[in-house]
């Protein structure tokens, strides 16, 4: 085989690779679009008026997750399943975003941490690599950390909306999350950097709780709750 032929063969491979990537990029764009729509729905919980509508917003978000599932179903057809990591970078970012959205919905619904299994189910994907298109543990954790930052914002806005007990619950939740993360032996990777950001969320929420404590607003709430 001549040098020229050898390079021609490789060129064929490279072109095919590019085509796959092009296809993936397109599906990923539609995914991002839908993700942005879900975000818009959920953002409204930060509004004073939004606090009452949390359940209905969550329902609406759940509906939109059907579309996400369709897009991801489409994505799966674009490349051989065992080459997930060859193209991982293309959907990594959006997958973390939709994981965040799923985690946020679940938190709003039940004030609990979504499990990886639940996220996988919401997105219509797998937990184990062997079973098909799956959710990497790093991506799951990244999504959870994005939610943590959203919760620190929620703590602030709850106070504005006059709900003084939610920040305390968020504070407990975030502290538990922080303990969890401290168990992990993170390398100097993007996840580590994101986790460093968690410190600021913890601190911010601590300050909100502080503001409520010093004004006796936590007790007031407890009193209300006690009744």
């Amino acid at each position, binding site marked *: *085989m001549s*040098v*020229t032929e*050898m*390079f*021609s*063969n*490789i*060129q064929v*491979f*490279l*072109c095919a690779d*590019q085509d796959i990537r092009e296809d993936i990029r397109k599906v990923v764009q539609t995914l991002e679009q839908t993700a942005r729509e879900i975000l818009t729905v959920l953002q409204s919980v930060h509004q004073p008026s939004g606090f009452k509508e949390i359940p209905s917003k969550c329902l609406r978000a759940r509906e939109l997750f059907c579309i996400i599932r369709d897009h991801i179903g489409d994505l799966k057809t674009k490349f051989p399943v*065992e*080459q*997930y*990591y*060859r193209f*991982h970078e293309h959907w990594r970012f959006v997958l973390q975003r939709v994981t965040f959205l799923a985690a946020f919905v679940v938190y709003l619904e039940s004030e609990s*941490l979504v*499990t*990886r299994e639940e996220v996988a189910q919401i997105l219509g994907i797998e937990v184990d*690599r*062997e079973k098909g298109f799956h959710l990497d*543990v*790093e991506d799951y*954790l990244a999504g959870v950390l994005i939610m943590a930052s959203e919760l620190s914002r929620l703590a602030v806005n709850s106070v504005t909306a006059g709900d003084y007990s939610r920040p305390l619950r968020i504070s407990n939740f975030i502290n*538990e*999350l922080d*303990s*969890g*993360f401290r*168990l*992990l*032996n*993170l*390398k100097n990777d993007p996840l580590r950097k994101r986790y460093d950001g968690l410190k600021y969320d913890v601190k911010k929420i601590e300050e909100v709780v502080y503001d409520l404590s010093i004004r006796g607003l936590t007790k007031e709430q407890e009193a209300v709750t006690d009744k």
Partner: protein
Amino acid sequence: SQKTEGHESDDISSCPLISAFKTFQLELDTKHDKYERLVKISRDITIESKRTIFLLHRVTSVPSTEELLTESEVKLDGVRQKIRQVAEELRGEDLYQFHRAFTLGIQEYVEAVSFQHFIKHRSLISLEEVNCRLVFLNGDKSEEKGIPSEKQGPQALTFQVTPTDYLLGVADLTGELMRMCISSVGNGDIDTPFQVGQFLRQIHDGFSYIGNTGPYEVSKKLHTLKQSLGKVEDACYTLRVRGSEMPKHMLADVFSSRAALLDPEDGVA
């Protein structure tokens, strides 16, 4: 680190979140450990491949290449055993998940094996030929370790070099060829430079045909490749221009006396 929880460990470890995170830790550590192992093997592959290249460069200064080629073959066999370890780590895994861990080593191996191939055959080793040497029969290994024959069988362990890693290895090969060409001129070898020149032009044309179709790393190498080619073309030019001053048979004569001058202990001339 589990012990650091102190006396609260009971409350905490009962918490589902914490136990979930403990499984995450396990998964992350497993992955991380495999990654680190691969990085280490890859580093070994790099070092040994570099040493092989280094050894092969002596081809410009020794009288017989046979011995050198044999020695390099032994070294490359060692490297291939390392690549077998990579293949074993990757058994059942998605190769691309850990690709970053070993890509540099594999590129360096391609560089070394294609350098050896060029010295032997004055041609470019193909990706298929590279991969052929990376088929490992189960037999070899299980015998060594005395593993029961359960997993033995016709199916062999293989490692597939990606086209991109192959390209990147070949791109680096051109730098070594340039060095060899310069050294050859420096040692009075008048054929090698022209062969290298011809060969390098082909590779250069191949790369410029691919252009920016491939990944960024490949197009990035094009500039260095151009520079290497320029240096080799200059060397060929110089040889031709200087050679023009005397008939070719005289030239050979000059170089044989020259060699005698360099190795007086040979005592022939």
